[in-house]
């Protein structure tokens, strides 16, 4: 048994669980549970009311079912909506207050939280199950007036900012999973960068699901005030469990005049085993509003984990001359499924968007790019460039490209390119003859295929992501 576990761990090295006592809300989705979450977080009344409003709307909403990957019905009453490490104190003042087991967990994940050891110039916020456990580098950021903390802390300390912006990009009633998140979100990160400030370091959040039968519902809110710049990265892992676990996060970005937000994701949730058992359902709503003129939002995602990935990080280009970008690598192996892409909503004049999507499918996996380019009536001189490339490894996997284009302004300029290619045996033979084994060859070819997207990642993470690309395709040929 032990050996079998170890064998499994070799495949997914983040698959361990941390034996840590946790406080959980009672199972199920109801008013009492929402009240519990709000109470334990000492939230103001308006926040609870907001949650309740979402909960009431949820009753009239149905889960969407138009996506390509189908999944068995989720029993929402059988989930825990709140789980937190027991020894966790409210707002730990410093890392010494943390349970050593938590620190150990993050060290194991390669995310040392001790500031002296942490990655060069990257501030980290770590979310363990339902709560944020540590935010590093606070003082240095505070000097510049940058707020980087857990959303729970922000609700208490910066209620006006939260109140003004939360739900302003993803409305309370947007769709089932987003509304569910609004009712029960537990934690996540909050960032505010003041006017004309360039955030001096990468901000990073690390999400970890530990407890079983627990859904993870984080909420992240990033506001870049006029003329500011911030680069933010999120990473995620979860233990290996036979059950499917739901992860339904909401991420809202707001860029005001001349501001720029760069948001990168390296998603490596547990993908399930080789036979498709277990794994995370990664149903996430990510949306950014380029609210000000000349603002820019750039999404970069490397999606290698999860049993099902279903997300469309989008940009609403309201401000004139604003720019939206979406760079994506989605890798599916074994029985993994992905239905991902973006929506670029052009509202302002001279707005520009760029979509580069690289889908890689191996084993019996299924990978869909689905995207919308929507040019509104008043979006004069809007431009969009879309490039969707699919790479197939083997002959039992699938790749699909579903681009939607809505154009209501004749001055728009829209380009779409798509390719599908396959790694063939001749190419592998050529690489083998040059001394590379199958896995090295596949990794080289795939990394070449997604180079344009990998280049968009912050330097410190590009190398990690490259390795991850290779690892997630291990065993896909041969």
């Amino acid at each position: 048994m032990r050996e079998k576990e170890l064998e499994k761990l070799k495949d997914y090295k983040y698959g361990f669980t941390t034996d840590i006592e946790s406080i959980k809300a009672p199972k199920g989705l109801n008013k009492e549970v929402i009240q519990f979450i709000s109470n334990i977080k000492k939230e103001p009344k308006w926040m609870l009311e907001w949650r309740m409003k979402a909960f009431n709307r949820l009753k009239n909403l149905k889960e969407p079912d138009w996506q390509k990957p189908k999944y068995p019905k989720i029993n929402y009453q059988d989930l825990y909506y709140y789980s937190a490490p027991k020894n966790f104190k409210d707002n730990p003042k410093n890392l010494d207050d943390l349970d050593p087991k938590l620190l150990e967990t993050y060290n194991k994940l390669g995310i040392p939280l001790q500031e002296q050891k942490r990655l060069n110039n990257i501030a980290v916020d770590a979310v363990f199950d339902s709560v944020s456990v540590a935010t590093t580098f606070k003082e240095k950021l505070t000097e510049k007036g940058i707020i980087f903390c857990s959303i729970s802390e922000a609700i208490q300390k910066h209620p006006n900012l939260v109140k003004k912006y939360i739900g302003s990009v993803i409305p309370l009633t947007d769709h089932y999973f987003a509304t569910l998140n609004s009712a029960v979100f537990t934690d996540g990160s909050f960032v505010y960068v003041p006017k004309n400030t360039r955030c001096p370091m990468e901000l990073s959040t690390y999400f970890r699901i530990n407890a079983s039968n627990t859904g993870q519902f984080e909420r992240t809110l990033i506001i870049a005030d006029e003329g500011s710049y911030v680069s933010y990265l999120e990473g995620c892992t979860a233990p290996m469990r036979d059950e499917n676990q739901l992860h339904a996060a909401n991420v809202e970005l707001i860029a005001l005049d001349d501001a720029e937000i760069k948001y990168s994701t390296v998603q490596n949730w547990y993908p399930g085993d080789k036979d498709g058992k277990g794994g995370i359902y990664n149903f996430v709503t990510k949306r950014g509003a380029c609210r000000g003129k000349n603002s820019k939002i750039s999404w970069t995602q490397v999606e290698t984990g999860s049993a099902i990935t279903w997300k469309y990080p989008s940009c609403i280009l309201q401000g004139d001359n604003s720019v939206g970008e979406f760079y994506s690598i989605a890798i599916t192996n074994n029985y993994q499924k992905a239905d991902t892409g973006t929506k670029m909503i052009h509202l302002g004049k001279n707005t520009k968007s760029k979509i580069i999507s690289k889908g890689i499918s191996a084993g019996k996996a299924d990978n869909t790019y689905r995207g919308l380019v929507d040019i509104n009536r008043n979006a004069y001189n809007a431009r969009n460039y879309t490039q969707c490339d699919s790479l197939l490894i083997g002959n039992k996997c699938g790749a699909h490209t579903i681009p939607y284009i809505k154009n209501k302004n004749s001055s728009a300029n829209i380009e779409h390119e798509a390719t599908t290619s396959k790694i063939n045996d001749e190419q592998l033979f050529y690489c083998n003859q040059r001394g590379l084994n199958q896995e090295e060859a596949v990794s080289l070819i795939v990394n070449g295929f997604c180079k344009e997207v990998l280049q968009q990642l912050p330097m410190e993470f590009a190398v990690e992501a490259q390795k991850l690309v290779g690892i997630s395709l291990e065993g896909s040929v041969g």
Partner: protein
Amino acid sequence: MLKINKLSASIENKKILNGLSLDIKAGEIHAIMGPNGSGKSTLANVLSGKKGYEVSGNARYLDEDLFKLDIEERAQKGLFLAFQYPLEISGVNTSNFLKTSLNTIRKSNGKKELDALEFLKIVKKKAGELKIDEKILSRQLNVGFSGGEKKKNEILQMSLFEPKMIILDETDSGLDIDALKIVADGVNTLRSKNRSFLIITHYQRLLDYIKPDFVHVLMEGKIAKTGCSELALELEKAGYKTI
């Protein structure tokens, strides 16, 4: 170096090689000529380990059973095949490909891997010696290369990896005279008493620049005749029918 004994190979029940024997000693250059369909490329493929063939007979390479080694192990142990049709791999930078391969080969031989700067210095020097434009290094591997550029890239890899047993599979086909000289220079520069060549070719003209120790005529899957370099000239005049 390489001793092939009664090698037969078939693909999809079609017999292509039929009891071929060949003994290549260190330092020798062997040329193999033969009509279309005589099994020349199959020989190159089987020796380098390409899958899909039913193989019988045996081959010893550096005192090891060649057929027990994987493709990449053969390559790491110094067996190099210059492809007749080098593969295009889009997105993969040529320089990165060469560096990854060279370092894998070096590592398997217990040598230190080269960092980017060390590698660039070496590869640029080699390209310069072979008069190959170093611009190919920054392009995607063989993508959009002319036929000549692809073959030059093979020769560059050959000289970079410094293999022990080199098989050239019709590397001269489709080359203009300048490119042909680059190929020949590559071979002649590497020629040494510790290194052997098996040159598969259709035409005698490559052998004007590379003087082989032996010329073999391959017909119906086995060696029909062996001679010295004059044999190639005879074949050029009289064709294969006289054999």
